[in-house]
């Protein structure tokens, strides 16, 4: 009798400790990256161009590249994602086509990101001749994060209560008017949250861009979306690889990781803020 209770207690703390292992590693990871990189993170690191000399290297061009990549990914994903979600939730509800697309989207979400890289390489880079430009990278990334936006937007649209729609129809509004003026505004916070989460996924994703063949060379700061570019995760990747020869590059990689983590933290906090602040409960 006693043993059973004792075992329960012992296991309870074992479970708790094992849960802490994961969080402990998270803490170690953050501490390690910050101690290694914080000394290198200063204003001139953020505002100077890439350089082979680790003392003078900065990530201005990398930041510009990431921002421009997001300028492509944002609108493309937003339009495609929201339109798909509206179609699935409002027009194709419970049809065979809906379940087909739904299965398709959930399978797409499980496709490894390198494969999206191969798709981008074949279709956008080679077939459309976009090379390793920001546009090619952005379009590839949009397809990769599309399932996130679609699923989030669908949930947001589904949570708009039916009586709002019915009231709108009752006033003589058409279906599209109802969607545009009633459903979408009510679902906006949820859609925005999904949008931010998908962008934060796109900012950290490396593999598809590397597959597209982003050059390793030091390059000028990109000025249009047709230019070649480098982005935060790619720069981390190359600096980590090159740290074998020049150990200081590892510190630069760590400093860049800090920048990346801070950006992600801000974005995710914004998503949580929007969700808590503007989400209406009916």
């Amino acid at each position: 009798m006693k043993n059973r209770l004792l075992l329960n207690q012992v296991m309870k703390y074992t479970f708790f400790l094992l849960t802490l292992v994961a969080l402990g590693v998270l803490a170690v990871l953050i501490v390690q990256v910050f101690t290694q990189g914080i000394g290198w993170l200063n204003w001139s690191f953020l505002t100077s161009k890439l350089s082979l000399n680790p003392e003078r290297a900065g990530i201005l061009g990398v930041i510009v590249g990431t921002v421009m990549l997001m300028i492509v990914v944002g609108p493309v994903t937003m339009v495609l994602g929201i339109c798909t979600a509206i179609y699935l939730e409002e027009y194709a509800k419970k049809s065979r086509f809906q379940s087909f697309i739904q299965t398709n989207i959930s399978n797409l979400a499980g496709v490894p990101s390198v494969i999206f890289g191969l798709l981008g390489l074949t279709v956008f880079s080679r077939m459309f001749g976009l090379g390793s430009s920001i546009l090619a990278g952005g379009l590839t990334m949009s397809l990769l994060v599309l399932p996130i936006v679609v699923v989030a937007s669908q949930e947001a649209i589904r949570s708009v209560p039916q009586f709002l729609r019915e009231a709108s129809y009752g006033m003589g509004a058409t279906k599209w008017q109802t969607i545009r003026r009633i459903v979408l505004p009510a679902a906006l916070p949820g859609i925005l949250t999904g949008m931010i989460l998908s962008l934060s996924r796109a900012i950290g994703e490396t593999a598809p861009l590397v597959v597209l063949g982003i050059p390793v060379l030091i390059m000028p700061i990109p000025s249009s979306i047709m230019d070649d570019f480098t982005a935060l995760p790619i720069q981390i990747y190359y600096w980590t690889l090159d740290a074998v020869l020049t150990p200081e590059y590892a510190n630069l990689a760590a400093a860049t990781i800090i920048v990346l983590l801070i950006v992600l933290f801000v974005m995710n906090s914004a998503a949580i803020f929007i969700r808590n602040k503007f989400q209406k409960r009916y």
Partner: protein
Amino acid sequence: MNNNLGVKEQIQQNLQKRNKRLMEKAVPALLFTAAFISVLTTIGIVLTLVFDTMQFFRHVPFWEFFTSTKLSPLSREPSFGILPLINGTIISSLIAMCVAIPIGLTSAIYLSEYASERVRKLVKPMMEVLAGIPTIVYGFFAYSFVTPLLAYIIPDLGAKNVLSPGIVMGIMIIPLVASLSEDAMSSVPNSMREGALALGATRLEVTMKVIIPAAISGIIASFVLAVSRAIGETMIVTIASGSSKNFTFDITESMQTMTAYIVEFTSGDAGSGTVGYYSLYAVGFTLFVFTLVMNLIAQYISRKFREAY
């Protein structure tokens, strides 16, 4: 039609009505086009992979690709056997599972069955942070922290080895296993918990004999999805496991996974049209089939064996 209106107003009203009707017809068509993009993406993926894989098998016999243990795409007499890559992929995923399954499952048990609401509200967001960290950061962590740490314990560990990225990959996957398993366990109705507790069972007995058996389909599905994630994971293994194409079972040595091969080959200078370039797609296709099968199995398990209450 209202007779008090002038001709101009009437025309305008008619126009507005027609526009409205046009919108009602055009909008669904536009939305359908957007929804169809996701289907096109799938078709695009399959077509690019199949097409260039067929090109590849014109140069390399099918049999050799799947049975040869020698992979040297850039040597003078290139040889394309995928077994070293499959071996590396399976071994790194196995290591990851050895980390992710025990820790993920116990975290799920703790959060679902033991933790108070306050602890849960604290731990779950932190798990989400863990899940949101980009894989490149984990790769850096594996290479510059975990490998040197492991080298203290295993002196003849290579600077690039499969053990360290395997472990880090496991840590990356913990949140996936934990949250999916927890979902499965918390969807077991409370009446079953209370029934068992009322019979005098301890929390542990309730968990082991009631909750886990009832949630087993969801739990297994989460394991299978985790394997699929590990197989498809790229940056951690690319950075920390290196690019040696040896067919070996020694986890202290460098191995290459299918994903890392794709990255190595595309960021190198594989000219379009060479056999090496096409091998990329053959490997990609194999990887795609691996993950697709895993995902379908997971879907099948969670649908087929779900206990409905």
